[in-house]
């Protein structure tokens, strides 16, 4: 697990040290540096002038993993970024083996088809429990595009009805893709997910965060994947634990990014949480924790 990143001169992250948890949630305004922060964990990231703060000099990124401090370009963890595209995850795929979702989820059908029957069943069972209007998910050849296939979704109440991806809600499609992460044939060590809350009902969002936390803490089996989420969502924070959240914002003085933690050690922390009836999202939106824009 990556426990810390030490970042110098990388894009807006001029000088930032960030501690990571098994599940870390980055929250902050648009353009605050969340995506850049995620990029610092990519072993293939370019550190030349194009990624340097104000395009001057070069960037330096080191990560601490299992107690060892390593330049990011020498790190050996497998990293995956998901910024799922609600249109592309519906596309039919040219049939081929796919062992990991690509960034936008365009190959969702192929990854699903590559799973073992057992993994497919486990995924479908989890999915239909959370989205109970469906009974099953399967792949079928695409009638218009020979050599292609697409996902289909079976109606819970009328088993003869199978829905096309275009007939399934954005949230259902996104949920299937996010739940699939745990089952990918080619697992990763670190996965970063941008805006996982998109299209999801708050109840489902809570379940998704629970699942991702379980995955990150190794509660789902032998595969443990460190999870990093980037969000603007106060609703998502309602399901976060305070120590999991990092508040990301730009400094008013020079535009560089700062990353703060909730002051859980402060004598006033418990009192403040009580005042907000336990709502971390509300406390964040008040501006008392950082990671909010002006306006």
């Amino acid at each position, binding site marked *: 697990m990556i426990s810390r990143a030490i970042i110098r001169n990388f894009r807006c992250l001029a000088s930032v040290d960030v501690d990571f948890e098994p599940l870390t949630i980055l929250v902050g305004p648009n353009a605050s540096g969340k995506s850049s922060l995620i990029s610092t964990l990519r072993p293939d990231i370019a550190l030349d002038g194009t990624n340097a703060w104000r395009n001057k000099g070069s960037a330096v990124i080191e990560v601490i993993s299992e107690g060892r401090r390593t330049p990011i370009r020498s790190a050996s963890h497998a990293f995956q970024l998901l910024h799922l595209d609600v249109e592309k995850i519906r596309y039919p795929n040219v049939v081929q083996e796919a062992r990991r979702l690509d960034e936008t989820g365009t190959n969702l059908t192929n990854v699903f088809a590559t799973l073992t029957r057992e993994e497919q069943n486990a995924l479908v069972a989890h999915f239909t429990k959370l989205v109970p209007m469906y009974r099953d998910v399967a792949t079928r050849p695409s009638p218009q595009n020979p050599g292609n296939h697409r996902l289909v979704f079976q109606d819970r109440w009328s088993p003869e009805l199978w829905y096309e991806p275009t007939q399934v809600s954005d949230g259902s499609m996104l949920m299937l893709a996010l739940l699939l992460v745990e089952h990918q044939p080619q697992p990763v060590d670190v996965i970063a997910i941008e805006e996982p809350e998109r299209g999801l009902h708050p109840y489902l969002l809570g379940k998704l965060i629970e699942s991702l936390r379980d995955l990150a803490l190794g509660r789902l089996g032998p595969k443990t994947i460190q999870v990093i989420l980037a969000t603007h969502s106060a609703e998502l924070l309602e399901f976060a634990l305070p120590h999991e959240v990092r508040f990301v914002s730009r400094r008013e003085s020079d535009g560089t990014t700062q990353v703060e933690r909730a002051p859980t050690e402060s004598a006033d*922390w418990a*009192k403040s949480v009580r005042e*907000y009836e336990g709502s971390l999202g*509300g406390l964040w*939106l008040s*501006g*008392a924790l*950082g990671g*909010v824009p*002006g306006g």
Partner: protein
Amino acid sequence: MKDRWAGFGFLVRLAAFPADSRQVSVRVVVYAEGPADSVGEQSWLPPPGEALEESHLGPAHHLVRRAIAHGTGVPQNAVRFLSPLRLRTGRHPRGSDLLVERSLRRLLTWPGPERRPDLAVVFVDDDGTSGRKQLLESYIEEGISVRVVVAVPAPEFEGWLIADHGAVAKVLEPIPAQPPAIEALQPGQAKQFLAEWISQSRNAVPSEVRSSLANLSSLSVLDGLGAFQAFRRDLLRALTG
């Protein structure tokens, strides 16, 4: 300089200024009824907890700054205003939010010392009610870590802005007639007087007029108003307590 302010207890905080010398600053957050009281020519505020610039300051800030400086000897430029907290929805608080116990308490809740100001001042108009100040103070009697001053102008904040006719005469042209005793006005009357005078005045920009009045009004004249006197007394007590 530090020794001179040693009596001001908690209030004296060392802060690193851009220059290499270290000076004293007092960090203050102001909540007021509406933007006309608490917002200057620039209404886009920085994130909560960040420093406000001079162009952000409204008449309420100017009066607080002058009252602190006059009462304690802290230089006016050492009084630094911070962008206030918002409601739990992210919305800027309105005057009516300040009257709701839960909202008021949350607006005065900072979970960590780094973002917490030294002082918060809450302005809520009296509006002809009785006991509003005591009621609001009872809301925050316990469990609030920041020092708070609740100021309740009677009948409303604009009464303070028009109370010193000398200042009014310097800012507005033609010079309006002196209104009767401010605290005897009906709710809304002071607001109406000021709005009429501004509309009749040549080239008057409302936000500039209000800020000028807050800056030019004599504090001794304003002390003739019971609510202002109470505000100054409470402010001094909060700063030196």
